[in-house]
């Protein structure tokens, strides 16, 4: 019996590789078209900012003494379903994209007054829907439930939801605007925010983009392989932290919420050595740094912004950030399709963490006109008669 299975496998292998399973009627089996417009992305991001002293004007500040933060993000972004729709005369292509998103964020706030570091995590798994209406409009919806935990303290597990609904209107290739809503934690608290954005300049060229609450950036590509940007953006979140150091003593909470945010201002360089891989390095200064602690029992019935029992504005610091982006799969062409460029750009940020996923690096780079080409590169384009 065991050998029979191996024999079936061997026969199957031979038939498959000798192409005896090919259709008889069609001597040319056309390969399957790429299904999606978005690559599958896997990305990591590392962030670290310097140590700063906390004020000793209250009990918590005195106890914590100083603050320094390291952050690591690992995430993915997978297109699950793509459907092209044509209008009646099949001249306009609109399309719907459903993507699965997920990320694991780990932050380690280091307080010199506490002996043991807390490793806080945020794990999210969500979906993203993008509907490109074909002409100038795009609808973008994101639903991203996540769970926060102080690793090692299972009783601190808490779940929350971040979401966004954005309407993008591409006026022309030089200008687009966005309006919408975002439920976000990136300002270190729970906020329901309006989403307002404008972009001036081509997405595959130099552009200036103001996207609230995501950030402001001035982007300059240098050739095909390097993209630079000057930017400022908020970064932060609300995480569960065990009250193992008795930071809150009023209601005997076992688990607290730790909120932090900072504004990063700096420069970023993206390097795209391959179409399947890119990396970036970024550095600059953090400003408007703030940390907060929230009591769970005090905020139990509070559905709006959380009220903190400890809040402190912290001095700025130098930060360092770098990341890797891996792209997989074959995708449909989007050359000069500025609506799709905007869709790629909308998909370029993990809204929950405000981390760039590198999706907009899928926007095709422009080629120099007088580039050298080899015969093998153009064999499909040129017939012998073209040389006459």
């Amino acid at each position, binding site marked *: 019996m065991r050998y029979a299975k191996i024999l079936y496998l061997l026969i199957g292998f031979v038939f498959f590789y000798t*192409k005896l399973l090919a259709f008889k009627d*069609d*001597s*040319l*089996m*056309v*390969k399957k*078209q*790429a299904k999606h417009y978005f690559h599958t992305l896997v990305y*990591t991001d*590392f962030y*670290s900012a310097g140590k700063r002293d906390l004020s000793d004007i209250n009990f918590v500040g005195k106890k914590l003494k100083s603050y320094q933060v*390291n952050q*690591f993000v690992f995430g993915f972004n997978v297109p699950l379903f793509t459907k092209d729709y044509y209008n009646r*005369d*099949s*001249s*306009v*292509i609109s399309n719907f994209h459903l993507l699965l998103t997920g990320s694991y964020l780990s932050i380690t706030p280091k307080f010199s007054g506490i002996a043991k570091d807390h490793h806080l995590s945020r794990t999210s798994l969500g979906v993203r829907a993008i509907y490109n209406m*074909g*002409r*100038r409009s795009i609808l973008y919806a994101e639903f991203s439930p996540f769970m926060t935990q102080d690793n090692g303290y299972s009783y601190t597990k808490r779940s929350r939801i971040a979401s966004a609904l954005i309407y993008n209107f591409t006026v*022309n*290739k030089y200008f687009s605007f966005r309006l919408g809503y975002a439920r976000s934690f990136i300002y270190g608290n729970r906020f329901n925010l309006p989403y307002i954005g404008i972009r001036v300049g081509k997405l595959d060229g130099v552009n200036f983009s103001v996207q609230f609450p995501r950030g402001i950036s001035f982007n300059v590509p240098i050739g*095909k*392989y390097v993209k630079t940007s000057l930017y400022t953006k908020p970064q932060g979140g609300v995480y569960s932290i065990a009250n193992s150091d008795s930071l809150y003593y009023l209601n005997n909470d076992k688990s607290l919420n730790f909120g932090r945010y900072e504004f990063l201002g700096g420069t970023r360089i993206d390097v795209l*050595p*391959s*179409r*399947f*891989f890119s*990396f970036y390095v970024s550095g600059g200064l953090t400003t408007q740094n703030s940390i907060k602690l929230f009591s769970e029992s005090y905020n139990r019935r509070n559905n709006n912004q959380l009220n903190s029992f400890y809040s402190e504005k912290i001095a700025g610091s130098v930060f360092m950030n*770098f990341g*890797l982006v891996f792209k997989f799969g074959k995708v*449909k*062409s*989007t*050359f*000069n*399709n*500025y*609506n*799709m460029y905007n869709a790629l750009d909308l998909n370029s940020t993990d809204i929950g963490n405000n981390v760039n996923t590198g999706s907009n690096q899928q926007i*095709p*780079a*422009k*080629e120099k*006109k007088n*580039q*050298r*080409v*080899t*015969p*093998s*590169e*153009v064999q*499909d*384009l*040129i017939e012998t008669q*073209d040389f006459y």
Partner: protein
Amino acid sequence: MKQVNKYIYICLFCIFALSAMAQPGTKRDKIEALRVSFISSKVSLTTQENQMFWPLYNEYNDKADNIKKSFRQQFVKDVDFNTLSDKEAEAYLIAELLVKQKEYELSKEYYEKFKKVLPIKKIALIKRAEEDFKKELIKNIKGNSSE
């Protein structure tokens, strides 16, 4: 800090490994980007025409490329025809004819689609731009081979 260092080493290793095997874009992407930029510079389209034409044009090129790729995959590029049997040679020639037929049908189908989004004159201009692009490529190849 030790853990951060570990991550940094892993990342650096990945960067070097991937950079070593990096292929900056496929041949097809390079030529497509050149062609699109050439056509854009030769034919001026309105915003609305741009928004409707390029998705169709990309779709057309994806399909045309797929037909050629399928053919190339079925028949190994550098096959020695002297060693082929008559039957195999005939299969090759028939497949080549089928490629041409499929390309023709595709061009016809998309010509009808382009007519709905662009004035006929602009389609002709794009066709001419495509031909001019080929000429540019030929010039480029000739220039390379003469060096």
